[in-house]
């Protein structure tokens, strides 16, 4: 059984890794968070600022966990700016996890959406052949390639970077690259995490080819544990029923790929 904490515990930032000019990884010691399932997340408290949901990055050392943050608005920037020795609060892990099928699987991620996918890679079964598609805008936004190679070193695997401007790896969107791949190879399952528009396309592609697909979604989260309703999408709570959903469910969703809720609960278009 997992230890699930509902009260923030304070952790000290032990290491800060610059991944790209706007992405950093913050390493802490936490036995419970170190071993979460792929897809699970934590609520991360930046004291005095906010508490935001964060996927938990896999670390090579035992007992270490990390958060990989892209500097965006107020809270992510506050987290991004923290230094070694400063403190954050964590509670979790929350949410369900990816259901790893046998055979050849594709992991398709963009930006910090790679975090749960790398943990999935870590949990890959011996018989999995893993194709990891990593999307970013341009070369200096590429990260986690080395970690991915390291994690997958005992699996038959392929790592494909795609940049929108073509400065690194394949040129174009991951969705386009995936499209081409699907024409030539047979996949047993596709897993995706990243911008919702991207995930929406990938789910459509997989569904149309009858390939098992799962996506890990983001929504506004307050409690993270299925109380407050702020993360609701159709009749599910993304924090508790998800964050991972099957292609079949997502195909029927009125909201996936179209709308998400603002802090007040009002639906807004993507």
């Amino acid at each position: 059984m997992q230890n699930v904490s509902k009260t923030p515990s304070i952790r000290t930032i032990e290491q800060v890794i610059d991944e790209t000019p706007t992405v950093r990884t913050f390493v802490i010691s936490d036995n419970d968070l170190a071993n979460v399932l792929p897809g699970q997340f934590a609520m991360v408290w930046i004291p005095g600022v906010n508490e935001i949901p964060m996927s938990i990055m896999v670390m090579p050392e035992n007992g270490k966990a990390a958060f990989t943050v892209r500097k965006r608005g107020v809270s992510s920037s506050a987290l991004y700016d923290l230094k070694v020795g400063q403190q954050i609060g964590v509670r979790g892990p929350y949410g369900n996890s990816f259901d790893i099928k046998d055979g050849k699987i594709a992991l398709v991620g963009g930006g910090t959406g790679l975090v749960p996918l790398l943990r999935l890679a870590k949990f890959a079964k011996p018989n999995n052949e893993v194709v990891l598609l990593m999307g970013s805008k341009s070369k200096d936004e590429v990260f986690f390639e080395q970690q991915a190679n390291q994690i997958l070193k005992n699996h038959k695997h392929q790592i494909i970077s795609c940049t929108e401007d073509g400065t690194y790896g394949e040129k174009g969107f991951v969705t386009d690259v995936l499209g081409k791949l699907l024409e030539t190879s047979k996949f047993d399952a596709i897993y995706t995490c990243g911008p919702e528009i991207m995930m929406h396309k990938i789910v459509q592609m997989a569904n149309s080819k009858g390939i098992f697909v799962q996506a890990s979604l983001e929504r506004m989260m307050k409690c993270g544990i299925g109380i407050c309703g702020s993360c609701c999408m159709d009749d599910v709570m993304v924090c508790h029923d998800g964050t991972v959903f099957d292609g079949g469910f997502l195909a029927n969703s009125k909201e996936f790929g179209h709308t998400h809720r603002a802090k007040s609960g009002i639906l807004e278009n993507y």
Partner: protein
Amino acid sequence: MTPDLSVSIGPISLGRPTMLASGILGISLEVFGRIYRNGAGAVVSKSLSKEPWEGYPNPTIIGVKNGYLNAVGLSNPGAPYFAKMMESNRDVPIIVSLVGSIEDEFEFMVKQFENCNVTAYELNLSCPHVEKVGLEVGDDPKLVTKIVSRVKSSTRAPVIGKVGLGTTNYLDTVKAAIDGGADAITAINTIRAMGIDVETQRPFLSHKIGGLSGSAIKPVAVRCVYEITSKYNIPVIGCGGVSSWEDALEFIFAGASAVQVGSAVGDRWIEVFSEINEGITNYMNKKGFSKISEMVGLAKRF
């Protein structure tokens, strides 16, 4: 014969004695439908205000030893938005919770729901962590009477006053709601409380002070239900720490006509409603009760 789980709370008739408490998951029709199909007799919406509210920054909800602390700040999409959404509701009994600071606001909000099927309005007179609405309203009995009577005269739907422990005697708030024509009382809201992180010496909640819910407050809530129903002749909906069929029955024996479930959804998930219904059914079978109403207030025999 299977026992009858339906209840009457004054003019409100529900198929089952458990409801989703206000502020819990209460935001979309689809979720309401899911909770209803899982056994709740009705769902209460988040408390709605005239305008949409963003609420406070996180942390807004954290666990404590025996429950939760929250200061969500009544984030809600506003009554007009919610009413529009509710128009397409077909079969789910929805109790609309409203919050505001003067009677005009309440009248405005009620008017939004003219094309909706509203099972009842629940007036939140007791939110412990938002100034000018909530407890500050409940602590002003004259204002409570004014608000309740204005809502009563603006709608034919039943009106429930939700009370909590504020800075005046909550029994006076109950009296004021009765004077305004309230059909029922919900007791209680969360209790003003706070938690401080020892490592950083900082209050956990961004609003610092919030409301305590969950099993910690159950004995206090049971006491309030007992006191209200002992003093006044008004149906009461028990709320506070209900997480099992035993808890639900404890409230019913104290005098509650039905119960609401909030925090327990976070611990036991949506199944909590059917679990409670099933437990009550078994108890009634064992003890030979055929209707919930036969059990209401039984603790008062002693």
